[in-house]
């Protein structure tokens, strides 16, 4: 295969293709506090996502979905990052990822905190794809807010 151009090299990194082909935490789990269904109307990407919260921490995230490699891989990477974290810390990560995606390619990603999610930095330069990368993160934020509200513990 020919070499990808430098601009796009960052968009389809091996990590993205790996997560797309072998997604983590895919398959809905029965024990959950909140479930949401989010769609990206321009692409037809969709995700159904479930969250279980215990003692202020993200105990489990599971999902099912379909769509482009960016939306599906980003959701898979997200589940790895937030699972086991305190809800407040995980929401901080979500904010950081959102800022990266909305940064039009001008925001330098912090690999220390975002870990594998930094591979999506290249997506920020393509406005049409930003919603794809954010789909799973927004669904997780929504589901977690509902789960926390259900517990009566405001974040």
């Amino acid at each position, binding site marked *: *295969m020919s070499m*990808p151009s430098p601009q*796009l090299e960052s968009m*389809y990194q091996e990590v993205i293709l790996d997560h*797309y082909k072998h997604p983590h935490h895919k398959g809905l789990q029965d024990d959950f506090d909140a479930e949401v269904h989010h769609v990206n109307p321009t*692409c*037809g*990407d969709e995700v159904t996502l479930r969250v279980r919260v215990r003692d202020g921490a993200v105990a489990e995230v599971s999902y099912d979905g379909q769509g*482009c*490699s960016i939306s599906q891989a980003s959701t898979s990477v997200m589940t790895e990052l937030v699972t086991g974290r305190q809800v407040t810390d995980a929401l901080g990560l979500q904010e950081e990822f959102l800022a990266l995606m909305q940064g039009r390619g001008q925001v330098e990603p912090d690999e220390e905190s975002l870990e594998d999610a930094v591979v999506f930095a290249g997506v920020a330069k393509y406005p049409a794809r930003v919603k794809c990368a954010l789909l799973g993160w927004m669904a997780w934020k929504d589901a977690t807010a509902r789960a926390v509200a259900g517990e009566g513990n405001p974040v």
Partner: protein
Amino acid sequence: MTAVTDLSGAHAVYDVDRVRKDFPILGREIHGRPLVYLDSANSAQKPQVVIDAEADLYAHHYANVARAVHTLGSEATNAFEAARDTVAAFLNAPSRDEVVFTKNISEALNLLAYSFSNASTFPGAERFRLGPGDEIVVTEMEHHSNLVPWQLLAQRTGATFRWIPLDDEGRLVSAAIDEVINERTKVVSFVYQSNALGTINPVARLVARAREVGAISIVDAAQAAPHLPLDVQEIGADFVAFTGHKLYGPTGVGVLWGRYDLLAAMPPFLGGGEMIETVDMTGTTYAAPPHRFEAGTPAIAQVVALATAVEWVQGVGLDAIHAHEVALLEHALEVLPTVEGLHIVGPTTAVDRGATISFTLDGVHPHDVAQLLDERGIAVRAGHHCARPVCVRYGVAATTRASFAAYTTLGEIDALVAGLREVGEMFR
């Protein structure tokens, strides 16, 4: 040189390299590769003469039209009205007054739908009135711009919204036409060539059936205009609309052609400057067509440049362009299916089909296909192409679409095929 022999004509040789020289953007590189622009059904690129025409009007002849008495106003008005003559001739319209300039085809179709609702209280406009029991007919392959305005009209008037369904190959179910268009039908609005499937519809049959039941017939020619001769007298419909930017012209200008007796009886849609006869605080009378339907300052420079685009097309020759595109289409229909996992959505033969091909690639989402092709300099469209019911009909969330134009080469189709093979491999 990639020359294509027109097999239907005598010895017409189409010099695509010469055509390409007219388009400065085709010299661009994208991500270090030569641009392969296969998204002309979305919007066509512009020849230098069109770019120059717009700039020339602003640089040397610009003023508002139809109201200024000074020299520049007269020059701009003359150029604007000459453009109407050019478009009228292009459509073989019986009268120049049947050509209404709109901002695009969406506005042209909305103009009709809203004028029809205004007819409910407009004297002499009975034939445009709709109500409960009346039916509006479209097809299942419409672009949203020829679907949503009619759904909205049905909602406003209580009329029933109906459609002619699609068969498995991407054509209208022939047997359904005479049933769906019936004595209750008041409006039949359909696409000439589908933007999502490439299908060319049986226009003569649909128009004849509409006429038989006394319905108004409207042809959405957005995708047909750049590829097929549009003779409104031969088509025989009541209204035909197209947009400039797909016909190598500028954005911001579309055309609605309508039979004069209908336009003359039809109430206005937008009110404003230049569409009136006389205005009084207690009532207003309206200008004759086409000005009745052109409220406000129009897209002057764009209308003038659209005429230049029409002349450019006529210069190359629509028949020659069509023959070239048929050759491209036949080649593409032959080579695309050789890509592993590729499935064409729409007719798989060149019969009654335009040079726009939608497809899916197993295991790869269309947005990934399009993004990875872009990396190779190839521009295609991915999504539902503003015709979501088509995707629903064929059970796909989205498709990738390659569309060809006067400047497309056989080599570019081969580049597409090579790119698709690479993309398929990445995801296996």
